């Protein structure tokens, strides 16, 4: 797919957006059709696959592993918290520019953005404010097994298989679905006395914990400023015409969990505030729909399992 766009095509897209008609017939605030499925990869604690029609395809996996606690040497913080480590990788199959080291910059940018929105890794959030558990909403203290020694580490790995524009939205939706689907086995801790603890991971498939705070995870909406208007869910060609891109991360309660601007353009302050509002309303609506669908899928899976039928996952065969 091109990384160049002709002036005629650029003009066509610009004029179309002014009249609220985009190249594929959508309006400025319309999303493309989204296909979402959870539990697609079998050896993980939780996984999801998001596919935007004719565009991006991402596969997210969450693996819960046990590891040592990371303590901040200055504040002594973190001794009773688990960790979330994110990584996003664009497969070279996703686009012509991703060959060899071409995707490194994009990988880094996406990974840092996700870490920032999920766990605020730049500055330590003090344990003095018990309500604050990182903007990702996930309660890290519940992931601790033995305070000061062992905790659950959630590795969130996103693999971008196909790049058709609007990558961040797809990744975040997938991460939210994957974490919703994540099952962490329960652990039993025995106090051997003398400050020594021993724990055992219970192997029961039915006796599992879900990640606490998973309903408060944010999703993001990317708004692209083209000309004087802004659009949602841009295709590749529309992204090439974008002057400035604003990523708004919003959670179920309507709080803004992160904002980041991209690309080499500038935004007028009033337009910025308007875009934030639009992002917020759209985000909340999207979360509602997403949650309804995920719950529906989880319930149908459960009924199938109780009846003894294995849940058939479409995986890649879903169109």
């Amino acid at each position, binding site marked *: 797919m091109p990384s160049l766009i002709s002036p005629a095509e650029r003009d066509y897209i610009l004029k179309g957006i002014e009249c609220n008609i985009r190249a594929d017939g959508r309006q400025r605030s319309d999303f493309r059709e989204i296909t979402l499925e959870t539990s697609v990869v079998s050896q993980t604690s939780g996984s999801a696959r998001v596919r935007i029609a004719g565009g991006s395809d991402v596969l997210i996996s969450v693996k819960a592993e046990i590891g040592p606690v990371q303590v901040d040497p200055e504040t002594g913080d973190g001794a009773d918290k688990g960790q979330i480590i994110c990584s996003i990788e664009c497969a070279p199959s996703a686009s012509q520019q991703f060959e060899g080291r071409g995707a490194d910059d994009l990988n880094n940018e996406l*990974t840092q953005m996700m870490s920032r929105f999920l766990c605020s890794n730049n500055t330590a959030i003090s344990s003095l404010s018990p309500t604050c558990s990182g903007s990702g909403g996930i309660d890290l203290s519940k992931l601790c097994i033995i305070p000061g020694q062992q905790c659950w580490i959630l590795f969130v790995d996103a693999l971008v298989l196909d790049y058709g524009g609007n990558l961040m939205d797809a990744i975040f939706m997938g991460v939210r679905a994957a974490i919703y689907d994540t099952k962490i086995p329960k652990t039993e801790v025995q106090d051997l006395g003398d400050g020594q603890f021993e724990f055992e991971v219970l192997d029961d498939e039915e006796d599992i914990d879900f990640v606490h705070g998973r309903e408060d995870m944010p999703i993001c909406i990317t708004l692209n400023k083209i000309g004087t208007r802004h659009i949602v869910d841009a295709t590749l060609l529309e992204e090439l015409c974008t002057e400035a891109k604003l990523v708004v991360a919003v959670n179920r309660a309507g709080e803004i969990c992160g904002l980041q601007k991209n690309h080499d353009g500038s935004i007028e302050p009033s337009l910025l505030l308007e875009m934030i509002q639009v992002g917020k309303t759209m985000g909340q609506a999207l979360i509602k729909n997403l949650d309804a669908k995920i719950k529906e899928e989880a319930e149908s899976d459960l009924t199938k399992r109780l009846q003894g039928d294995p849940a058939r996952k479409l995986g890649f065969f879903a169109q």
Partner: protein
Amino acid sequence: MDRKRVPGPELSVAPLVEYPADFKRWTPQDECRHDSKRQPEDMRPIYLKTGLITQANGSAYIELEKTKLACGVYGPRPIKRVGQIFSGRGILNCEIKFASFSCAKRRSNIRDPQERELSQILSQALAPAVRLEKIPKSAIDVYITVLESDGWGSCVAAAVTAASVALAHAGIEMLDLVAGCSASYIQTAPLSISSLSISEGDTGSISTSTTNTNKTITATATATQPPQIFMDADFEEEKYQQGAIVLAYMPSLHEITHVLQSGKAESSTISQSVEHCMEACNKIYAVMHHALLESIGENKEAL
């Protein structure tokens, strides 16, 4: 075995600092800021001077009390390897590096992923202001070294400011200067315990050998007020922040070139902080002007 060298120990840890008994750590619940002379809407005084690096086409040095950083600009100079796609615009290439002694925890000498992302953010904040279409097939290199960092947000904001001044000092054509500013949301109201509940049953994680501790008391503390906006927070204050925002703004054109917000916040808090940041950027603009005029004055004397 390597007999020529005496290696240090394989594992090294930072020493534990013991504070004296009367040392009082600053908390947000104290009525004032960490630096008691400042109000929540005050920025730290800025010292900004150009011409630090004589080799570079343009340079600037900025100090915000303890945050110190130096910026050098080289360009426009020809691109070493012309890319396969010709675009009519020049390239703005920013590199930011934290010196290994700049933060409380030692940073490595190689650029880590966070610095690489910051470099990208910086170039995105400056690019709208520079007239790149005037210099096709050329590149402008901006190198920033952070000598001491007192607050991550203020570092980024200072980097944007210093880079703009250095670009102007180098004589590169720009549409406007970009001023950078940061703010933090800190909960200052004392937390009140709004609900107390005692629940039975196991906690799921710790089962002790004694039989009577199966009840858990959960206290949910909720803040009654929205967080307060502290402009230009330093390192001690940032520890308690619930969220932060960094803004890069062009005052004459009245356009925002970059916004970066992390942590949870209501949209009303964000609009308020954006306005505060814009006002602060206007004040910083005046400082930038003054520094540039001074440098012209010096040049005239030198001639």
